[in-house]
């Protein structure tokens, strides 16, 4: 767990540094997903950063494309590409586009995203394909697909089309993770367009549901293992998170949804991370 703490801290540094250098981007959501990404990539997924196209790998679909920095930083920290490349974020010619692009074949990136409400459908297609292919190409276990969604994203109707279809096809190799930070651009999710009772909705759609503290490594790990072991239905993990987690002055402040630190603020934030 100490090791995971250190990884998470490092990924937060990479994110903040890259965003400050880029001068634009989404800080809040990127930071609050760090702990989940850390456990996924360093303590759960079947994957091989040296062989990103390994057919036996599990796949991650980042449906909330605007939190691309957390995906990029985690992939870099895991060794998919050099960490220096984080400084090209959002710049002309970079593989690290503002929202993930498949065009540049960034190692470890499975699909583009950025238009909300599509990732779960894409992940469902991948999970269907994995079911068809069975364990023949894998590591002895069926390939699993993880889809990271935002809570505001739950307002997109297409999410629920995919939710219905995944349960109908009994895709127990599919696991959705919802970043429940309760904030979106116009304010609190329950004020903008209420999505609660969120867990009941997913349960009604035929999913295995789990609710956790999205910053507690052991809860994250346990939920991922429960999802692995669930048979006959897909699992959704509703992860309660704090937008901007890790930097006290921006935590739970939706002003930081689409804002980045200045170079001055970056110094303070990095200092705070190391305390």
């Amino acid at each position, binding site marked *: 767990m100490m090791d995971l703490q250190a990884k998470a801290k490092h990924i937060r540094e990479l994110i903040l540094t890259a965003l400050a250098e880029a001068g634009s981007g989404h800080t809040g959501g990127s930071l609050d997903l760090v702990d989940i990404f850390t456990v996924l990539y360093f303590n759960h997924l079947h994957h091989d950063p040296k062989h990103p196209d390994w057919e036996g790998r599990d796949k991650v*679909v980042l449906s909330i494309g605007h939190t691309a920095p957390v995906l990029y930083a985690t992939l870099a920290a895991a060794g998919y590409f050099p960490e220096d490349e984080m400084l090209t974020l959002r710049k002309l010619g970079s593989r690290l586009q503002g929202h993930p*692009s*498949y*065009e540049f074949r960034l190692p470890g990136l*499975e*699909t*583009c*995203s*950025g*238009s909300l*409400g*599509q*990732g*779960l*459908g*894409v*992940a*469902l*297609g*991948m*999970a*269907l*394909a*994995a079911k*068809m*292919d069975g364990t023949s190409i894998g590591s002895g276990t069926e390939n699993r697909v993880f889809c990271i969604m935002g809570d505001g994203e739950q307002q997109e*109707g*297409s999410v629920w*089309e*995919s939710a*219905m*279809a995944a349960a*109908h*096809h009994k895709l127990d190799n599919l696991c959705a993770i919802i970043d429940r930070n309760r904030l979106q651009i116009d304010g609190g999710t329950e004020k903008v367009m209420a999505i609660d009772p969120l867990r009941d909705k997913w349960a009604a759609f035929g999913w295995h549901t789990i609710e956790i503290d999205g910053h507690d490594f052991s809860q994250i790990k346990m939920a991922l293992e429960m999802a692995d072991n669930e048979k006959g239905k897909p699992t959704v993990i509703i992860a309660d998170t704090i937008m901007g987690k890790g930097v006290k002055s921006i935590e739970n402040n939706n002003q930081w949804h689409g804002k980045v630190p200045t170079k001055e603020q970056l110094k303070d934030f990095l200092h705070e991370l190391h305390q």
Partner: protein
Amino acid sequence: MNYINKGNKPTKTGFGEGVLAAAQQDSRVVGLGADITNSVGMNFFAEAFPDRFFSMGIAEQDCVATAAGLALSGKIPVFSTYGVFAAHRANDQIRISVCYNNVHVVIGGAHAGVSVGPDGATHQALEDMATMRVLPDMTVISPCDATQAKIATEKAILECKGPVYVRFGREAVPDFTAENQGFEIGKAQLMREGNDITIVATGHEVWEALEAAKILEQKNISARVINMHTIKPLDGEILMKAASETRMIFTVEEHQIIGGLGSAVAEYLSENHPIKVVRIGMNDRFGESGQASELMHKFGLDAEGIVNRVLREWA
């Protein structure tokens, strides 16, 4: 090109036969259904390969996103529904999950044009070529009859690399092209020689244009007829030849004159060989209920309508 009407057959049947033929050759082909499996030609495939056909319900947005996921995992998904729902309801999913990823997903757009008939405007695809053509990396095919629909679909599935939209109709229409027609995606077919005017048609309108050319011949107007079965990529070479060898170009499509074949031809020729281009199609309005033939006549899309328009412009 020689042709003979072998009898009437819907192009959707040709599409379905093409999917089946491709699936028999390549086990990666999978199908997605949005409840209207029979009426969009996917029944042959679904019956032959039930393990490779997934019923997804009336959920076009999910169908397209799921197709993209399947393609990213090495499958060749074919998703067919009415063109209005494929091209419009799921347009954002086609744009991002399919086209931006540039994955090989084949989308069937059924119920093309007003010849859908009694169902009326909601189900008559009249803007689908416009919204599909504008997307980067998308190939748009509009075969002229059932035989061509089969060949084009099989090739679209087995030979294309990126996203493809194949458009086809509901009505039984003349099936007149030969099996060994040497069909190539992106290469238009010269159906009839002529040296006064050129009629560039797509879909079932190719047949109407050929009938129109016969009538025009009796009125001493020699009409060349081109089957532009691929709207994108457009065959510029055959258009350049027509523009230099004939004096006026007419385009005919069961689609809005904005954004489809007519626009594509006019765009190409205005840049490369300016010449008068007259676009025949739906003139910025919705369709309505009626029998297919009545609607084709009302909107000037049958042979008689084409002849009348040519005579008016040529005078």
